[in-house]
Structure formats: structure tokens, C-alpha cells
């Protein structure tokens, strides 16, 4: 009985993290972006610095009319937001935030998370196709092309950590982690983070939703709750990417007093990386489609291969 209860508590915790952390990142984005651009951001909802803004947005989305364009492929159009969202929830189950503090410690954790994370893109591709909208179709294709280009450096950089730790379990990787990996795995960390950003289509890799040329890409025809789910998927993706980067490359819960406050370290590292994601959005202009592909194939992939070679040589010698 206690085992069932234990699983239930873990699953509820994963679901809660999935619903709360993306909102925290979204709220941070509102305010941090505003300050970086010398403006206020939302200030009224809730009284104090607009802290209820996201809740108000949520209420608005939930009670908005649901329009599915008559020309659209209706079934796929309706399914797409769910398929974009659920993989990020499922991937979160294998990410540990402290020793033993994990939804489910899987032996193949790293492989599982990488595989499941990529499924979300299928939702975006479905949205782009089903919208029966030329811009949405272009945006969907760009998303797919972006996944194809950046998945490889992403996976190679992750493999480098697996080589260094000798295990695919995320908990095992953190246990094996030592501070000097910060230097040893630095190229891999950069490749992993940048490629992850590109997979999430976050600025400066937001070509698929480039508003100045293809309106809002695959999400153009969406409104209400379905649109909100795509947004939630984007922010859940940020949380997942940052948590993964923290666990793989920054030592997860390791830090001073990690015995007592380990999980705070993981969350702090995750949130610090999320701030970097937001910072990127403000700091860099959007890459053009060909620049984006060239960055992946001629910079990130060779860099990731070099990191693999370096990791292999040092681990064996």
C-alpha cells in the first residue's frame, strides 16, 4: 500500500512541477524582459507588479470560443496541442532534483528523456499541416527542419556526458559528476544548451514562428485553450531543457551543503539557466533559415564530435 502511495505522491509532484515551474518561467520572462527593455511589463493584475497576469491570461484562454477553421483538417488540428504538450510532462518524470527525489529513476533515463522530448515537435508539425494555411505549413516545415538539424548535436553532446559518467541513469550521472567536468564538458554543455534552445524554437532560433514573415507559423490558426497549450508546451520545454542541462553538465544537486539543500541547488541552477534563455531572447536577433542550418551542421556538429573524442580519450587514459 505504501508503495502505491509513494508512486502517487511522486506522480502528483511531477504534475505539480509541470504546471507551476513553466508559469514561474513565464512570469520571470514578463518582468525580466520588461526590465531589460526599460519598460514596466504587466503591472495591474493582482495589484503587486502584475503577479496575477498569467492567471488572468489562463482564465481568458479557458473561456474563449474555440474556432477550428472550416478548411482545416479538423481531427489533427484538435489533437496537435495535446501531442505537443504531453511529452514534456512525461519526460519530466525521469529528471531528478535530489538524491532519490525523482519521479521515476529509469536506467535509460538520459535516452528516454531525449527520445520523449523530440516527440513534442510532432505536435507542432501536425498543427502546421492541419491548419490549411500556407504560412502555418511553412512554419511547420521549418520546425521539422530545425529538429533534424539540431537533434544530432543535442544527442552527441548528451552522449559525451554518458561516456564520462559510464551510465545513462540521470541520478547516476549526477553521482559521478565532479567539479572539473565544468571545464572538461564545457564545449558539450554549450552545444547541448544551444541545440536545445533551437529545438524548442526559442529566440534567436524562432524562425518557425517568425512574425514578420509567416505571421505566427504553425500556431497562426489557434486560439483559446489550444493556443494556451502550445504556449505551456514551450515553457515546459524551457524548464525541461534547463533542468537537463543542470543535471547533466552543472552537477544537479551538488554544491555546498548538498546533503541538506540539494534539491534547492537543482532548482536554482535550473532557474538561472531559464534566465539565460530569457536573456538570449532579448539579446540576439533572429537567425535566418540558412544561417540556422549552417550553424548546426558546420559549428555544433563538429564541436560535438570533437567533445566526444576528448571525452573518450580522457576517460580511457
Amino acid at each position, binding site marked *: 500500500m505504501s508503495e502505491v502511495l509513494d508512486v502517487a505522491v*511522486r*506522480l502528483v509532484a*511531477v*504534475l505539480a512541477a509541470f504546471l507551476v515551474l513553466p508559469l514561474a518561467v513565464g512570469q520571470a520572462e514578463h518582468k525580466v524582459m520588461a526590465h531589460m527593455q526599460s519598460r514596466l511589463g504587466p503591472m495591474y493584475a493582482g495589484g503587486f507588479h502584475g503577479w496575477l497576469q498569467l492567471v488572468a491570461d489562463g482564465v481568458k484562454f*479557458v*473561456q*474563449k*470560443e474555440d*474556432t477550428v*477553421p*472550416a*478548411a482545416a483538417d479538423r481531427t489533427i488540428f484538435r489533437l496537435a496541442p*495535446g501531442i505537443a504538450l*504531453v511529452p514534456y*510532462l*512525461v519526460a519530466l*518524470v525521469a529528471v531528478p532534483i535530489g538524491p532519490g527525489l525523482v*519521479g*521515476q529513476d*529509469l536506467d535509460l533515463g538520459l*535516452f528516454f528523456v531525449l527520445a520523449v522530448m523530440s516527440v513534442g515537435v510532432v505536435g507542432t508539425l501536425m498543427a502546421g*499541416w492541419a*491548419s*490549411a*494555411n*500556407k*504560412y502555418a*505549413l511553412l512554419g511547420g*516545415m521549418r520546425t521539422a*527542419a530545425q529538429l*533534424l*538539424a539540431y*537533434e*544530432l548535436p543535442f*544527442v*552527441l553532446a548528451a*552522449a559525451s556526458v*554518458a*561516456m564520462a559518467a*559510464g*551510465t*545513462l541513469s540521470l541520478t547516476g550521472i549526477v553521482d559521478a559528476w565532479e567539479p572539473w567536468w565544468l571545464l572538461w564538458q564545457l564545449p558539450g554543455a554549450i552545444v547541448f544548451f544551444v541545440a536545445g534552445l533551437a529545438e524548442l524554437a526559442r529566440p534567436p532560433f524562432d524562425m518557425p514562428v517568425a512574425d514578420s514573415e509567416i*505571421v505566427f507559423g504553425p500556431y*497562426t*490558426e489557434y486560439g*483559446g485553450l489550444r493556443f494556451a*497549450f502550445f504556449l505551456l508546451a514551450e515553457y515546459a520545454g524551457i524548464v525541461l531543457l534547463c533542468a537537463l542541462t543542470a543535471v547533466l553538465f552543472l552537477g544537479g544537486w551538488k554544491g555546498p551543503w548538498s546533503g541538506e539543500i540539494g534539491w534547492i541547488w537543482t532548482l536554482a541552477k535550473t532557474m538561472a539557466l531559464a534566465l539565460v534563455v530569457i536573456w538570449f531572447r532579448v539579446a540576439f536577433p533572429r537567425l535566418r*533559415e540558412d544561417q540556422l*542550418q549552417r550553424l548546426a*551542421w*558546420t559549428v555544433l*556538429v*563538429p564541436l560535438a*564530435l570533437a567533445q*566526444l*573524442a576528448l571525452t*573518450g*580519450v580522457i*576517460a*580511457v587514459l
Partner: protein
Amino acid sequence: MSDYFSGYLVVAILIALGVVFVASAFAANRLIRPNAPTVEKLTTYECGVDPVGEGWAQTHLRYYIYAYLFVVFAVDAVYLFPWATVFAAPGYGVTTLVEMGVFLGFLAVGIVYAWRKGVLRWT
């Protein structure tokens, strides 16, 4: 059932939980949203102007070539993972590393080939 698979049972439960979450959100949405479709409302929005022609227009996707590159490399990259967990274990060592070096060398030559062929840039 062994512990190994019971771990994935938890994953299956979570997938079910996710589906229930999405389904119940849409059910709640159905209860509280208005529903008053008109012909204009159901027109494809596109860029705000009435759409011309149909939505599934033909375009030249120049990046289809990357899909080929990707399939080759991603299938190869999968082999890295089982190898990564054992290559530094006692009894493997340098030989294993050199073998993987040869493997990655082939990957690298593939990229260099595509690069030299001018596949990686377009005008």
C-alpha cells in the same frame, strides 16, 4: 514483474495522467466557452486577408536534403549510447576507443563530404 519494467509502468501511468489532464481541460473548456460560429469566423485567418487558393500550397523545401543527412547520422548516433556506458570499463580500454574513433571518423567524413558538395549552404 521485475523492477525494471515496473519503472516503465509508472511512466505509462503518467502518460495516462497527461491524457486525462488534456481531456479534462478541454471538457471544462467546452462547458464554459461560448459557441457561435459564423462563416466569416471559420475562414482560415492566414495573414488577415482572405486566403487565395488552398492552404496546402506547393513550396520548394530546400532543406529536405538535411532530412537525408539526419537519418544517416541519427541512426548511427543511437549506437553511441550503449557503447558509452561500457567503453571505459576494465577489459575494454584503448581498443574500444579506437574502434569508436573509426566509427566517428566515418560520420565526420560524411559531413565533410556534404559540406564540400555545397549541400550545407544555399543561395
